[in-house]
């Protein structure tokens, strides 16, 4: 199961890549696999604020709908329209082309990052599930 080294992870299987004050968010390969064929995604709008671990969107698969939670607090600056049009790319490439939302991370997010898992910890975590 692919887990990317330079990302931070949540228990709910979201990942975030932080570069400066920009955070790119998506769901992990584990989540995509568990969900099965993703059929629909929906996000908060650009400009909306979100708190750490609060809902930032919804992802639906054939069988069910689940919420996606933001790994860090911030403001939505971009959403992946391609993923919304063709959600298959999330299954195909959950860490790259299937990214979901971009946020401007609030105040660097240093404190909040402590609540997230590093790659090795996430890898161990999914083995227990």
């Amino acid at each position: 199961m692919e887990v990317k080294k330079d990302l931070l992870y949540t228990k709910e299987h979201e990942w975030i890549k932080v570069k400066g004050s920009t955070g790119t968010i998506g769901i992990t390969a584990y989540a995509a696999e568990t969900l099965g064929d993703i059929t629909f995604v929906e996000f908060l709008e650009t400009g909306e604020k979100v708190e750490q671990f609060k809902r930032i969107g919804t992802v639906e698969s054939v069988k069910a709908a689940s919420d996606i939670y933001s790994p860090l607090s911030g403001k939505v600056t971009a959403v992946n329209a391609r993923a919304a049009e063709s959600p298959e790319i999330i299954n195909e490439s959950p860490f790259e082309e299937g990214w979901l939302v971009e946020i401007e991370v609030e105040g660097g997010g240093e404190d909040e990052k402590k609540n997230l898992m590093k790659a090795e910890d996430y890898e161990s975590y999914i083995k227990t599930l």
Partner: protein
Amino acid sequence: MEKTVFFENHRRLEARFVDFAGYAMPLQYEGIKSEHLWCRKSCAIFDTSHMAIFTVRGEKAAEELGGILTANVKNIRKGRCRYSFMLNEKGGVVDDLIIYPLKPGEYMIVANASTKEKDMSWISARLKSSAITDEGRNLVKIDVQGPSSEDVLESVFHIKLKPLVFYSFGFFMIAGEETLVSYSGYTGEKGYELYIDKKVAQDVWEKILSDKRVKPAGLGARDTLRLEMGMPLYGQDLDENTTPLEAGLGKFVDFSHSFTGKNALETSALSKKMAFLLSLSRKSPRHGYELFHEGAPSGYVSSGSFSPSLQRGVGMAYINPGIETEGQKISAGSGNLSCECSLITKKELVTLVNTAKKL
């Protein structure tokens, strides 16, 4: 969980399993969408061996079964099978099933896996001189569905299926056994249900799969396929508090004979009626979502999912009988789950899916 005779076959195909009616069943292999689309394009094989297969035998079997089914059993033509309901005194559906008259005094009944024990008790209690047997120890069912299904079965087993018409059946030599095959299924595609002797079941499964035109499909695809055709699922679209008339399935009720529940159907008003939903987006209505028409609570979604053929959500729902549906929109679900749908007829839904297939 119990295992079907095909469990190892599924495991080798790396199926993802789910508990259905106490059986470990394959939910999917390659993926629900791809299995679904392959069925509509080519041919899919389904393990449906968890379903109930009963035989009812007796001199008076036709009469006795006629008394508990909405089908006028004695009038079913030779070589034909019939979709029918068992109703309670309120006209509510105890189960939906297919009845196969095998010979005078002998009938095969195929019913849902989740209601096997209930059906066995219900029927036993109502038979007077006839006897019911559970054939599950000896026989298992598999479904082979898709435009290539006839050619596949003919080339794999050297049998001629052409004489079969929709909802007719015959006996064919398959893997050295006389096997009942019916032209029927739960997908809306040309397809067959095969009732196979357990001892040759895995061999038959592997032989069919060896044809390159065939892929295995799980319960996930089975559900999206039937939903696209507006076919009901017992436990969601049909239950003991829902009559066939409310479900829009009155044509499977033959009022020319007496049966349990007839009086209720003739005298009660509909408390709800079946409607079909087409989401205006990729968002799907789901089982249990409340419906809102012009802002007012108007019913609930009984079945809903994403339609791989239409790339939109589709659903079956029960709405207040007074609501005019033509050209109307309705909202399913609340809050973030809320999705806007058009109310359409079953015919419109099926036409949309069949048109999409050709693209």
